[in-house]
């Protein structure tokens, strides 16, 4: 377990010291959500109705911003080559990097979301479910997104390609995240099944995606 823990704490230390990726994601999320009411006009009912969708789509785009750089600096400075000869298989390295991405991006974004919900006039009964869907759903973004980050590692302008490759894969998370919130708004009991499916998607991503990411990293080192 030691290499696992050491790698995770190194990733968190780098994210904390560089600071830029967390700040950019949170800032981008904030700006997109603040601009939407300006574009859509001051119709509070309209905003409240589409708020779950806006919050989720903007969160996906914000998380995608830093995803492209998940393995980039490790490839450029040679750390990835040392990882390949290290004690952890590249699959485990991929899992740790995705976990660190979730802790530094998915988690802060999910916690910022309720504050932004206020800006969109999201009804009070939706907040608990909003945060729950995002906490449960965002690991899938970091872990599935890791595959795309590894595949586009050596491509120029990989970020755009990453968005094209990965956004369709986030559709299930998006659908069930939004449907849980909508259910909570109409009938307080009916959000359970959506949350469970969301959890299933995330758990499957956490278990399976690192295998694909590890294989893609191995290819990139060839």
């Amino acid at each position, binding site marked *: 377990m030691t290499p696992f823990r*050491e*790698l995770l704490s190194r990733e968190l230390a780098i994210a904390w*010291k560089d600071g830029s990726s967390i700040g950019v994601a949170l800032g981008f999320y904030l700006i997109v959500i603040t601009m939407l009411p300006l574009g859509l006009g001051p119709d509070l009912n309209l905003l409240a109705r589409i708020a779950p969708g806006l919050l989720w789509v903007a969160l996906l785009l914000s998380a995608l911003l830093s995803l492209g750089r998940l393995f980039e600096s490790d490839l450029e400075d040679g750390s990835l*080559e040392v990882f390949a*000869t290290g004690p952890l298989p590249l699959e485990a390295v991929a899992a740790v990097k995705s976990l660190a991405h979730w802790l530094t991006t998915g988690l802060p974004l999910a916690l910022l979301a309720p504050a932004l919900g206020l800006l969109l006039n999201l009804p009070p009964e939706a907040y608990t479910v909003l945060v729950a869907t995002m906490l449960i759903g965002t690991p899938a973004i970091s872990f599935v997104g890791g595959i795309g980050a590894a595949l586009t590692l050596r491509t120029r302008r990989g970020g755009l390609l990453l968005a094209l490759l990965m956004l369709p894969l986030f559709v299930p998370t998006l659908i069930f995240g939004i449907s849980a919130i909508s259910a909570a708004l109409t009938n307080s009991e009916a959000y359970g099944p959506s949350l469970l499916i969301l959890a299933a998607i995330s758990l499957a991503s956490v278990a399976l995606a690192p295998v694909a990411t590890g294989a893609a990293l191995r290819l990139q080192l060839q």
Partner: protein
Amino acid sequence: MKLIAETLSVMRGDRMVVTQLTFAVDGGEALTLTGPNGAGKTTVIRTIAGLLRPAGGQIRLEGAQPDRTPSEECHYVGHLNGVKASLTVEENATFWSRYLGGAAADIEAALATFGLGSAREVPAGYLSAGQRRRLALARLLLAKRPIWLLDEPTVSLDQASQAMLTKVVDTHLAGGGLVIAATHAPLGFAGSRELQLGAAALAA
């Protein structure tokens, strides 16, 4: 321990860079790979490290624990240093030591050996190219591994650091370790053999 490469062939793109290469390196021995640019020195080293998959032939270890592959027994110091610019010298060294399973007591000694003792608190991004290289080489001493794979280890090192590296390598060899280095400049390791690569591969 003995590292054996048998009829090793490696493709890069659609070109066979290394063809039917056979060599063996014993514990306590150093093998230097020489040859013109593009002769396949880096390719051979990366293949031993397990980063490249050979198109034919095999690399195996004799006298190691049976479930260990060469890549788990080796230190690979390539062209890139594996140094994080935003972490300090000490944080970089501590991470690699713990990650690769080294002893905490070796960190200070490794940094001192490579003349980085006084730069401990400096973020690695502020180091010169030679200092960064020395930090990468310090990894060799942070965790004990019998096989050292060095790809152009002396690039951007000054005379004194090169002598330091030679001394470190000689100690490693005397302790029964083995070293495979790709180089253009003579490295002066004790009892090193030379393997000339490339003349045939380039002509083909």
